[in-house]
């Protein structure tokens, strides 16, 4: 009955119910229906079994256990946690650890990968072959082995009592890297927010100014940002916040004070980043090779130097090809961070495994893990796609 409508206004009508059903059922409607029902039945069967099995084990399905006290300690985290806090808080510690190690890993992998990808195209056979060997080695060995190797290398550093001190205040040992920190007497977070706010405000002001009065000299821009950073600090000290240096030193069993990066964190981050850098290098190489030679020749004929050709002409075009593939490298890096448990970094999986082991709520814990990684992955994809649309596909508007 809709057929006549479709012929009258081609491409503008919505499909009628029949067309819609036909679309869903495809060429073999009976087989399709059987498949739908079969899938539904399988899901129902599995679910019923699951509930029956949990009942048999005396497990109450649900996430109520998350509020109970978790009686284990966690080695490191970005928020305060102690044995006796809730399982939910423990899971949050793990999630933040996973995010931190993945984010830093992605950053490092990008820098390394892009550099190596470009180096792989070098005319110098030594450079290009070395990078090729690097890429092949990393892509053809299991990540878990690489993590063990990194962990071993980092553990070979001297113990805390014989810590290396390459710079005054900096200590490097098998317990990790310790750097002096600025102690703000507990106002660190407020100050950080103030500085970020001031920098964002300055950015807006500069944009407005450029819009009204044309580009400012580079030196003025640098000074303006510097002022944005220093102003909150100056105001804070005006209100009596004392800034002292917290220099790490050996106390008791450990080095204390300053900010530190544990060996497991370092090993995991390095391992993930180096591993991902190999595939990113290949992506970058492929992206660059896909740019027609004419672009190079044209840029060179304008008198641009090789570095500028790469930076101004080739890379921006190659980015269109590179970026979507790079997103998947980031996603696998994040997911691979779950190997942390093997080397002792308390990531989300490690902490949730312990939770499952203690509470027996394995199913809920797996659902939590799935949810967390799904959210992280989708968020990464979203950000990358947004960046792609905004800066790459439409060209950089700045």
């Amino acid at each position, binding site marked *: 009955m809709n057929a006549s409508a479709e012929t009258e206004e081609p491409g503008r009508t919505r499909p009628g119910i029949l067309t819609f059903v036909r679309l869903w059922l495809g060429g073999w409607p009976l087989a399709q229906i059987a498949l739908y029902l079969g899938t539904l039945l399988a899901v129902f069967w599995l679910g019923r*079994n699951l509930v029956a099995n949990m009942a048999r084990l005396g497990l109450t399905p649900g996430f109520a256990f998350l509020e109970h006290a978790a009686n284990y300690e966690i080695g490191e985290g970005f928020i305060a946690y102690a044995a006796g806090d809730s399982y939910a808080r423990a899971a949050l510690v793990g999630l933040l650890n996973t995010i931190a190690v993945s984010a830093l890993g992605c950053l490092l992998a990008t820098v390394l990968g892009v550099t190596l990808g470009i180096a792989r195209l070098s005319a110098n056979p030594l450079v290009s072959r070395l990078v090729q060997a690097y890429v092949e080695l990393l892509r053809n060995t299991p990540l878990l082995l690489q993590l063990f190797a990194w962990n071993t290398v980092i553990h070979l550093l001297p*113990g805390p009592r014989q810590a290396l001190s390459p710079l005054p205040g900096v200590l490097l040992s098998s317990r990790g890297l310790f750097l002096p920190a600025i102690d703000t007497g507990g106002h660190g977070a407020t100050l950080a927010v103030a500085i970020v706010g001031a920098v964002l405000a300055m950015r807006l002001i500069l944009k407005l100014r450029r819009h009204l009065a044309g580009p400012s000299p580079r030196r003025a821009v640098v000074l303006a940002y510097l002022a944005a950073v220093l102003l909150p600090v100056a105001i804070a000290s005006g209100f009596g916040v004392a800034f002292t240096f917290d220099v790490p030193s050996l106390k008791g069993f450990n080095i204390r004070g300053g900010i530190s990066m544990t*060996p497991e964190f370092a090993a995991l981050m390095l391992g993930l980043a180096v591993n991902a850098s190999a595939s990113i290098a290949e992506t970058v190489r492929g992206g660059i090779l896909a740019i027609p030679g004419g672009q190079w020749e044209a840029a060179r004929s304008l008198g641009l130097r090789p570095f500028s050709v790469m930076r101004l002409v080739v890379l921006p075009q190659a980015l269109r090809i590179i970026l979507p593939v790079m997103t998947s490298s980031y996603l696998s890096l994040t997911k691979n961070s779950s190997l942390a*448990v093997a080397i002792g970094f308390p990531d989300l999986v490690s902490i949730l495994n*312990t939770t*499952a082991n203690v509470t027996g709520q394995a199913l809920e814990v797996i659902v939590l893990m799935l949810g967390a990684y799904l959210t992280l992955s989708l968020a990464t994809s979203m950000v990358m796609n947004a960046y792609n649309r905004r800066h790459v596909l439409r060209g950089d508007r700045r």
Partner: protein
Amino acid sequence: MSFHFGLSQGLRAAAVAVAVSGAFLSTAKAGPTLDAIQQRGLIKVGVGTSPGFFAPDSNGKWQGFFVDFGRALAVTVFNDPNKVEFTSSSPQQRLPALQAGEFDILLSGVTQTITRAFKLGFHFGPVLFYDGQGILVNKSLGVSKAADLDGATIGVQSGTTGELNIADFFRKTGKKYTPVVIEDSKEFVAALESGRVDALTQDSSDLAIRRSQLAKPDDYIVLPERLSKEPLVPAVRAGDDRWLEIVNWTVYATIQAEEFGITQANVDEFLKSEDPAIKRFLGVDTSLGEAIGLDPKFAYNIIKAVGNYGEIFDRNIGPKTPVAFERGYNQLWTKGGLIYSPPFR
């Protein structure tokens, strides 16, 4: 981690039905686990990896204290110590694997706890080894008791009760520590040797074994304190009473034999004994076996094949082995220890 889905549930129900109907014919009712074992002709045992307790020898044949109890079980069920298959499983994976039916029994140094019994659905056999959580430290730290470890970094193996015990211990004493939770056994030991952690905590028996594997064992010491009770038991899935009782009485047979003074070497001489208890135990008087539905000679077969509890202990982990454990709590009750068998009558 895996779960038991669908099909096998149906099969189990069928197995239960068969077993229940079979119960009218035979004197005893078999459960799904035992049925599966008998059909397969093989017992699947989950073990760990620690020389002395469980480790494959140079021929790939599993050897060790817990392994011998697996062989004893095969004797009870099949009268053949080789009808058993050992598979190593990590502390993190072993319980879910047992629950999923990958193993018929865990002989991997599982600690008996109330949570595991009620919430996780496991049942436990008799204590095979009385252990307690200890701490392994480098002597150069000058630490003599656990309380000296305030502020220390301590390595913990994931999936063990140790993770909770050490947290409890430090909370109780109001001291601080930093855990490094590691799943991989090799990395766990390497963390101590490299100085990444100040101490390792685990069941003290396990620590003694790991200490013997270090490059310089004499630089390290297992602190004398015990932070917890760790009764290491065979673990089975709940819901198969018959299988659990077979596990129980297989272990008890090795203990009772030691109490009687019956060993692998002299068991044949004991067949001539006039003691009615020994005659019942060894199946010379078959009344006991007929009553319980097991082979009347099952105890004799076990002792003949693997020896009594004391022999199993001495052969694998006793003072003359590299692990060199004293019997301690694991001595017979008649000699001041905790090892005890209910009566065979």
